[in-house]
Each structure stands twice: as structure tokens, then as C-alpha cells.
């Protein structure tokens, strides 16, 4: 879930042209070492002390950005910022992010078909398709693109049938 605040920070991060490895490394560091995140979020810890820690722990390329987050008490939303950054990068490269939930793993040809359909529909160069097995669908699949769902699952059809019967 990307908030507007995270989106603004992600824009700044994109303009800094920091390598993806560094950003990913920073995220991992914050995720693994929770004490570090807590300390950087703690308002009782002095800003200068926080800056010293940032300079020691993180890559030089991202230090200034981390200091900015620290000054705006936004360290806690780094994960969101990273997500927004990814979405922005995809947007810039003309890549569409989608998620496919299935009950039976689709074949490569089927995946290719889905990607082609999405590229055509959304006028994009490529599709980054995330795959996830979802036995609760009973059969078929659901494709998520942003806020839109393409539901061709048994679960969805049953719920439609249920709605139709209730309406009658």
C-alpha cells in the first residue's frame, strides 16, 4: 500500500539515481536489524547521533537520503517508499506490474499470452508478472493489475451466481 507521503519520497529517491542494489540492501538492513529501525525512529535519540549511525551503517550513496528520512521522521515507511520507488521505476521503463493467482500453474505459452494481452491493453513494453498459488480459488485464475481484477475463477463465478440468486 503506497501512501502519498511515500510516493513523494520515492520521487526524490528516483531523482538521486541510486543503484537498486543499494536501495534493496538498505531495506534488508532495516528489516533484519529492527533495533536499528527503532533507534532511528525514536524521537528521544538526538538527530546528530542518528546521523552518525547512518553514516556508519549505510552505503555512502544513500546516506543523504536516509538523513532526510530521519529529519522527517519517515524511516518507518521505508518499505512503502521502496514499493513506490519500484512502481515509479516500472512506470519509467514502460513495465506493467501484475499478479496472477492460480490453482494450477500456467504453462509458459499461457503466461506469454497473458503478457501479450496486458501489453496491448495497457500500452506497455513489458509485463512484470508475479505468480502466486491460491487453492482457495477452487479452479481458474485471477489476474490483478493495479486496482483491476480479471476474475476467471470458480470461486468468483460461484459468488456471482450467489448474487444473481439473491437479486432474484
Amino acid at each position: 500500500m503506497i501512501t502519498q507521503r511515500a510516493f513523494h519520497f520515492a520521487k526524490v529517491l528516483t531523482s538521486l539515481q541510486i543503484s537498486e542494489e543499494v536501495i534493496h540492501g538498505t531495506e534488508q538492513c532495516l528489516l533484519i536489524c529492527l533495533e536499528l529501525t527503532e533507534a532511528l525512529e525514536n524521537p528521544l535519540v538526538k538527530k546528530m547521533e542518528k546521523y552518525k549511525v547512518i553514516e556508519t551503517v549505510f552505503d555512502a550513496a544513500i546516506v543523504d537520503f536516509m538523513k532526510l528520512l530521519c529529519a522527517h521522521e519517515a524511516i518507518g515507511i521505508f518499505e512503502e517508499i521502496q514499493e513506490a520507488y519500484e512502481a515509479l521505476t516500472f512506470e519509467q521503463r514502460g513495465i506493467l506490474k501484475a499478479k496472477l493467482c492460480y490453482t494450477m500453474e500456467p504453462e509458459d505459452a499461457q503466461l506469454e499470452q497473458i503478457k501479450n494481452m496486458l501489453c496491448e491493453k495497457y500500452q506497455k513494453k513489458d509485463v512484470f508478472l508475479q505468480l502466486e498459488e491460491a487453492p482457495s480459488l477452487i479452479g481458474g485464475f485471477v489476474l490483478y493489475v493495479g486496482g483491476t481484477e480479471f476474475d476467471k475463477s470458480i470461486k468468483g463465478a460461484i459468488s456471482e451466481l450467489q448474487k444473481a440468486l439473491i437479486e432474484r
Partner: protein
Amino acid sequence: MSNSKQTELISVLKNEIKDFEVKTTVRETGTLLRMGDGIASVYGLDQAMYGELVEFETGVRGIVQNLEAKTAGCVLLGSDHGLTEGAKVTRTKKRAGVPVSNQLIGRVVNALGSPIDGKGAIEAEDYFPIENEAPGVCTRKPVTVPLQTGILTIDSMFPIGRGQRELIIGDRQTGKTSIAIDTILNQKGQNVICIYVAIGQKTSTVAKLVSTLTKHGAMDYSIVVSSPASDLASLQYIAPYAGTAMAEYFMKQGRDVLIVYDDLSKHAVAYRTMSLLLERSPGREAYPGDVFYLHSRLLERSCRLEEAYGGGSITALPIIETLAGDVSAYIPTNVISITDGQIFLESELFFAGNRPAVNVGLSVSRVGGAAQTKAMKKAVGNLRIDLAQYREMEVFTQFASDLDKTTKELLNHGKHLMELLKQPLSKPLPLHEQVILLVAANHKIFQGVSLKEMKAFRSDLMDYFRAKHSEIIEEIDEKKVLGDELTEKIVRAAKEFQK
């Protein structure tokens, strides 16, 4: 369950299952972030429209009221039971609306148009959006046809025309709703459909009103839209719009509709609650900045249409409750400026026994004059001026013995007029009765009658006219014109009765 119903149900199920196939359904969804007091913040719904109906996972619906960069603020139209953070919210791509049909007549429905009177389902013929654009300048017709309220004070001095918006304003317990109910009762046989919208009222009050309407046979041409005080603020907010949507359905069929909003003060309060919960900036008296637009866009939908556009009309009687007679408060001034006149009811007059307690000085009808029947216009004469003079001189009544003859006569005439304008509840007067009484009053027929005997005298006078001079009654009702000859006839007959 009867056998035939069981067979029908089984056949429906069989058909649905026979036609069952897994189709691709495309949905636009969002995620519920937080919720409280009937307000939900939904992440996503990028393409959602303002005022769009959305459906929550539990089946409950909501209306999009705030569009922000990443989230949409929605008001719930039902219970939030079972909804949790992360629940899915789906766009319906439809604007909020109500089902409409002729079957609505005689029914009590909620703000969503669903029946609440236990008389079975209402088959919808169409679906009308609750928020609709008001008819344009070229589609409207001037207000020229009268809408008789049956209340002598109003029909004589503040006439209401079909398509007019006349505000009923006053403190609590001054008879605001009674005027509206009497007006509804008087529409019997007038080919007018009446819609009564109860906003934020006690359910018992609405039940009492429905029983009054049923007792007088007024439910045959009426619809009651009820959103009681126990309803969510969002439902109270949409109730008048839903009622107007129903009125528009009939207006487009060329029918005349009378709609009563009881009351818009509570409607404004419900909107204030909703706006504050939606985190909109509070303004004067904590109302949001668009509270004027809230009522102006509602009342602008009342009008009289040109024949080419259906030819029907919506006459609106909004009600506003004031505090200690303060008409200069925020909501009263707003609605006064929107409407085409107001009937101001005063506590003092009410407790002095003058019912309806209409303050003649502060009440006005801006467009109704053109709609008043010629007979009534002529019969009224100088009624307003006489009453104004009486109210000015009223203070001197305590010095009665020292007053000159003219002043005494003026005070006496005024007292009789005040007595004449008193009217009991649920007893609307037909046009001919109003005309005869006014002509008699203007010709000082009541002068010699004591105030205590006035009620009996006017009742006997009308009985006399019905028994001996039915031709006068017929002439007034048919021609609706009061010539000099007819005036003379009325005066002569009244004098005959006096003897």
C-alpha cells in the same frame, strides 16, 4: 412455504445452474484502510467517480464522497458489521440512486427506496440517481397554477403555486408539520402526488403521521420516505435527495408532485456530522463550506416543466426549525434565500391560540401571487393591510374606553379576522368556503358576532350556503372568478342568514 412457491424456486435454481458458466469478470477494487462512525477510507479505487456507489465485501454499499490522491472517503449506507481492515471494496460504476415505480404510491420506504411498511416488495420500473441536475431555464415554465393548501391564512395571503418552493419556518412545537400534513390532506382528488420526507425524526412520530394520512385516505396518493434519528448520518443525508428522485420520476410523467422535507435543519446537522468525520474543514457553526450548495442543489430541482419536457411539477415545502425565533441563524438564512417565500410560525401566536400561528408580517410568497385564483385574489381584498393595522393598534386594546369610534371598529374588525383565520388540525377548507368567508369578513358580516360565537356562526353560515345557495358554491368552484354580481349574491345570502 406453499408448493407452488417451492416449485418456482426450484425452477429458478435449476435455470441459473443450467446457464452457469465461468465467465471472466472484470472488477475494479480497493482495500479498506480504516473505518469508523459510518465513514470508510478506501485505498485504491483510482477510477472511482464522486458520488459513485461502491460495494463492500459484506454486501453493504457506500457512496464515494471524498476523492484523494491514493484513497477515497466513502460513507456507508448500512451496517459496518463484519467489515475489517483490508476488506475488499468494489466499484459498481453506478451513481447512487433509488428504484422508482408507480408502486411506490401508498408506501413507506427508507432512504434507499426499500419498503419498510411490511407490505411486500416494490417492483422497480426504473432507477433514478439521487443527485440529478436541476432542469435548465428553457425547460421551465412560470408558476401559474395554484396548489391549494386548504389553510385560509396561507391560500389567502401567501398563495403557493405548483412548482414553487415555500419554506415553513418556526420554533419547535409551532405547527410546522401540521401545515405540511394539512396541505397533503387537501390534495385529495387534486391529482397531486405527495411525498413526505422525514429526516432525523422519531420513528413514533413518523408512525403517527402515517396513521393520520391513512385515516384521512391520503396514503392513496402519498409516499413517505423515512430516515429516522436512529439511521446513519449518511442515510439521513441522502433521504431528501432520494425523495426528490422519486418526485422527478412522477414529474417526468407529467404529474404534479408535492414534496415536504421535514426538516432541513436536521438534514444540515446530518451533513455536518458526515463532513466532520470525512475531515472536511468546518466553517460557521461547524458546518462545512458547501452547506448552502447542499440545500440549493436540492431545492433547485423543484420546478414546473414545459409541456415538451413532460409538463409536470414539483412543489417543495421545506421545513426549518429555528431556535428562539432566530431566523438570522446560518441554515435558516440560507434556506430563506433559496426558497420562493416563507411561512413564519411564531410561538407567541401559537400559545395565544392563533392556530396556524402564522406571522403575517414576516411571511411572504414571492411567486405564488401569479398562481392565485382570481376569485381568491378578489375575495382577499385588504386582508393583509387590515391585519397589519390591527397588530399595530392591538397594544391600545387595554384603553378601549378612551378610543375613538374608528379605532374601536378597526380593532373589532381585526379581532374578528384573527378569529376567522383560526383553523383546526386536519380540516382544510375548500376554495368556495375560503372565498365566501373572506367576502363575508370584508363586508363586516361578522361585526356583530361575539368572538366566542364566531366558530359556531361561520359553521352555521357555511351550512346555510350549502343548503340554500349551492349555486354560489358551484359557480365559485367552476369559474374560480369572483365578479361583482357574485360578491353581491354572497353578501345578500350572508345577510339573509344573519336575519
